[in-house]
């Protein structure tokens, strides 16, 4: 088990090196000069050149890449080009907020999505099944900036139940997390329905039924347990995407998380900040995948980590 963990974490190293290199190279590849962007429309080229030198942007790509890697190994993520604060500080401010939002949204997905899928699977083809399917697909198909603004109009302005936007209290979390969860609820409901149906067709369920096991125990002990593995896989993917920053949700609800940070870093060509963001995202990706894989063992004792 321990050596398995070590190996998994070791796999993350080339991934990190890879994403950092791609970020550094792609910021070189696309047009846009961070120094010019910082100084704005009205600055002269000599001022821009001075700033470029000051920020070390005049060094070749490989030098900057190696520099970053060396610093990261020493535990230094560098400083943002834009506001010169340590990248680690900025990530420390934004990531917990995104984790809060993503965590709440994933909880909603679990609480709402799985029961919906189960309800649909117990009576396939019924009206309940079809209503759930259509409603969840509708949730999947509306862009979040539309649903978000509609929710604001209804729940914040007309009913006055929740704050319009921003962070602070738990009430601030309601609208953005629901908005963010909606498409994933649809996906999880569909996935739950189809995997439960698959499992229901397996021989062991028939055997269990024939042996007279109660339906309730059948549902929990056999069906859900077996259906959980694919559901968790998809849940992991969804969580990874949400932690990667729900750019649109965060923008609409003025939520100062990683998504908006990513857009800021891209639009301002702030490559040290972007390097920090992708490193965290890559680690999140590895971490979520690891958790998903470990959780397989919970549901399927046959899985061995070796």
């Amino acid at each position: 088990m321990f050596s398995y963990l070590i190996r998994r974490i070791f796999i993350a190293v080339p991934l990190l090196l890879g994403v950092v290199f791609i970020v550094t190279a792609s910021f070189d590849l696309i047009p846009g000069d961070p120094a010019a962007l910082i100084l704005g429309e009205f600055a002269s080229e000599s001022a821009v050149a001075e700033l470029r030198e000051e920020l070390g942007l005049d060094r070749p790509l490989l030098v900057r890449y190696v520099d970053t890697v060396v610093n990261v190994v020493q535990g230094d993520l560098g400083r943002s080009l834009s506001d010169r604060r340590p990248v680690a500080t900025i990530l420390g401010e934004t990531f917990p907020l995104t984790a809060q939002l993503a965590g709440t949204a994933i909880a909603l997905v679990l609480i709402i999505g799985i029961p919906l899928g189960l309800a649909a699977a117990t009576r396939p083809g019924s009206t309940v099944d079809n209503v759930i399917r259509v409603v969840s697909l509708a949730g999947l198909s509306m862009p979040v900036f539309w649903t978000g603004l509609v929710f604001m109009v209804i729940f914040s302005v007309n009913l006055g139940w929740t704050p319009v936007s921003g962070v602070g209290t738990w009430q601030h979390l309601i609208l953005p997390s629901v908005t963010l969860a909606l498409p994933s609820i649809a996906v999880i409901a569909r996935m739950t329905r189809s995997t439960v149906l698959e499992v229901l067709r397996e021989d062991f369920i028939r055997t269990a039924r024939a042996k007279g096991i109660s339906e309730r125990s059948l549902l929990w002990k056999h069906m859900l347990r077996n259906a959980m593995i694919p559901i968790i896989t998809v849940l992991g993917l969804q969580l990874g995407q949400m932690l990667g920053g729900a750019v649109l949700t965060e923008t609409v609800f003025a939520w100062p998380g990683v998504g908006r940070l990513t857009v800021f870093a891209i639009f301002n060509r702030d490559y040290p900040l972007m390097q920090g963001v992708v490193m965290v995202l890559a680690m999140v990706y590895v971490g979520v995948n690891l958790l998903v894989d470990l959780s397989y063992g919970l549901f399927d004792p046959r899985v061995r980590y070796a």
Partner: protein
Amino acid sequence: MDVAEKEVLLDPNRTDRVVPARPASPHRPPADVPGAPTPPPFPEENPLRNLRTVFAALVVLALLAGVGLAQKTLTIARPTDPVSLDPHFETTAPGSWVFSQILEPLITVNQQMEIEGRLATDWEFIDDTRLRFTLRQGVTFHDGTPFNAEAVKYTWDRAWDEDRPGRWKSLAGPVEGIEIVDEFTVDLVARQPYGPLLLTATMPYTGVVSPTAAEEMGDEFGRGPVGTGPFSFVEWRSNDRITLEANDDYWGGRPNLDRVVFRTIPEEGARMLSLRAGEVDMVLMPTPSDLPGLEADPNFTVEGAPGVGVFYLAFNLEREAVSDVRVRQAVAHAIDRELIVEAILEGGGVLATSVIGEPVFGYKDMRLLERYPYDPERARELLEEAGYSRGSDGFMVDENGERLTLELLPSNGRSLKDREIAETLQEFLRQAGIDVEMDIFEWATTFELMRGATLEYDLNSFTWFTTTADADYTMYSNYVSTETPPESWNRWRYANDDVDEWLKAARASLDLDEREELYGMVQDQLAVDLPAIPLYGSYEVAALDASVEGFVAHPIQYLLNLHPVDIVD
């Protein structure tokens, strides 16, 4: 001799603007009026405004009955967070809105475009390269450091640091820096005679910083600046909010507000909904189409002023098609600029009458509506004169039968409705037989392309702000033939010897009448040569809750005067 008192600073022919500059008189009520609290924030955020008003009245009554004083907090929503609160690193409006509450320059321009003293009480030109300021005495910084000539010199020296120059240094022209005369007198010195010198000293970036705080904090100064202004810094939560509180010892009197909170709400719709829900008191850059409704609603007010920015459609004179003035004239005739202002901007902008805004010193009406009225048929005739003929599909074609196609690089999300205007321009030009292809990128890419030594587009649309409110700031860098990118901003590659000469003379002169006449001649010439078609002038507008009083919009978008603002329920 106080130059400002003797001479007219801005347009001498306009009495409404001509006011001798003198120290701002501390006009404010004798003391804070107790018992006019804002309602508590959360349960009050009810859309049923009538109920809310009744409830608020009850709360006020209850408080008047002896519950005590509530804080007056003004919450302002705007789209972006600043990068830094130190003008050394930050020269954009979102930064200036905040740091200009904390850091004060020696002099400033008020909403009527008159020069007012802030940390200087008097100023006069000693000679044509030297401007002398008498400083205000008895002022202390928020950290207790006394304000004096040293602090002024420290602030300017900091920006002129060789290793790490301030971001605004390149905006200050041939300025050399500050020389100390005595503890409360300084000279601002230029290398050569420089007409815009006085207005340079009004730039919000020149706000004087506390030398002790700046030394101690280093780069951290940008996360919590210390100055002499009416408000002092409390807290900055990135991309969420910046909180300021009243400076009890402000030399101009304690502000009416206790706190000011700047919230970052990027989505336009969410900003407007926050105002309607009572979550914020003031929205900067509101949705234009919502303004008429807000104005009609007694719960809200709208405050605006024509600004110093102009949105242009610029031609790249190096490109063959638009190097022909008849083609440029045809484009001007093809666009119904009045309709664009009315239907797209809907009160968020005014019809531009020159390449610089009306409040700017040196402005002259280019009479563009008379010269180039909307007339698509005239546009086609001009194109025919230029050698194009009408093709079968409605587009104009050249002698080889090639469709007249112009490539447009529009700014996107950089100024109000820029993308929408690009889309409308495309359609207006199509009606006149010109095919427009456009590339919409995010700003970083667009900006890089605009700054390039060669511009691979025929047309470029963007807004230029004359931040110093002096025509030189825009005219010199944009129209002198040698000021081409990337070093400067003559993006249209405009070259006219007369214009070069006039602009250089205007820059070197200290005679305001002479300067104004020269800039007038330049604008007349630009109306004929037409290197750019001005489309709309910026309109600095804020939507406010009706309880906010005393706010007057400033033509310069960087400036936000919150000192006299009050909240009265």
